[in-house]
């Protein structure tokens, strides 16, 4: 197998597995009892949005080479959750490029350097700031796509959803907590089971 294909498979598996875990979690009766959401609704974010953490992780590991694998899984997720056409396109692009934008922003502004993630020690503070930035980008861009000209595109959903404010209040903390928890668990497991050796290198 070529290196690129191995990376594609690894990225696919990591992100797909995270989606699977997260989807199972949000469908647990206990979780629904705590969050108060009995059915999935696009305007209400999850309290632990783990997939964002997986997108950040695959970018930290493989940089731009993770793009195709990530795009494939997030596109499949859009189909699975039966998103409207414009939301599916917009959300897939945000999911694919959002974490990459966050990493590049922090690097271009000379705030952090993630090029040696996994080989050299990256300060936890830098990782936390990355999850924070990626969460803000993810929430704000999805919010913009969903609410921009809402009155023209699907005015009916104003009455169905729980308002723009709930969108922000639920998405942002969920993204921050979920991505941070995921990254911390990934780093811990990586160190405990020496998963670094599984990383594909050229």
């Amino acid at each position, binding site marked *: 197998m070529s290196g690129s294909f191995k990376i594609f498979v690894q990225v696919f598996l990591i992100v797909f597995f995270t989606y699977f875990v997260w989807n199972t979690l949000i469908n647990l009766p206990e979780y629904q009892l705590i969050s108060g959401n009995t059915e999935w609704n696009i305007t209400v974010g999850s309290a632990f949005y783990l997939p964002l953490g997986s997108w950040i992780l695959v970018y930290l590991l493989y940089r731009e080479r993770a793009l195709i694998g990530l795009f494939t899984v997030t596109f499949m997720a859009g189909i699975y959750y039966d998103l409207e056409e414009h939301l599916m396109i917009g959300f897939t692009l945000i999911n694919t490029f959002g974490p990459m934008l966050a990493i590049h922003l*922090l690097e271009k*502004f000379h705030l*952090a350097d993630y090029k040696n993630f996994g080989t050299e020690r990256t300060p936890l*503070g830098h990782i*936390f700031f990355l999850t924070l930035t990626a969460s803000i980008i993810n929430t704000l861009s999805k919010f*913009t796509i*969903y*609410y921009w000209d809402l009155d023209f595109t699907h005015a009916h959903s104003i009455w169905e959803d729980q308002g723009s404010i709930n969108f922000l209040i639920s998405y*942002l903390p969920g993204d921050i907590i979920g991505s941070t928890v995921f990254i911390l668990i990934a780093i811990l497991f990586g160190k405990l089971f020496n998963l670094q050796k599984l990383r594909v290198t050229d």
Partner: protein
Amino acid sequence: MTEFIRNNFITYLIVMLGTAFIFPLGALELGNEYYLMAFGAKILVFLLYGVSILPGVILAKLTYMLYISDVGADPTMAVHLSLISAAMPAIAMYAMNFTGVSNLRDLAHLDFRHIIFFIGFASILSSLTKFIYMSNFMALDHEAAQFLMQYITGHLIGGTLIVYLVVRFSPQILGFISRVVSVR
């Protein structure tokens, strides 16, 4: 203690000066929401003095909200908005220092790129919290995204413009003052 009071007093004056831009821009119908100079003044004082001037910023915002702006009719809202407006750049600054991505306390060795990022980060935090708070009082669903983006753009332009102008022209102004003083 004297230094603390002096810094807070200077802060109060600078932030009030920043809010003064609102009126000429409003009269020229340039759209205040796109040039929030007051935010730039706030960012500037936080960069100059650190988080210790928070009381001065809160006082300046309170003065503006209660006695100058339209929000004064609702004192509770004025107090809340003043606190949000003053605290957000402080939180952004603290987050950047705490995570170790930048040291905004050391202005002498600060990379200008860090300042630009700080302005952007504080803009987003400030706009988001104001938006969330304001939404309790008005129905914004129809134009929620436009409202928020307009807010963020205003904060970004105002913040960057003021800090850039000060950084760009302060050496000339200081040089001119020192020449005048030395001639005398």
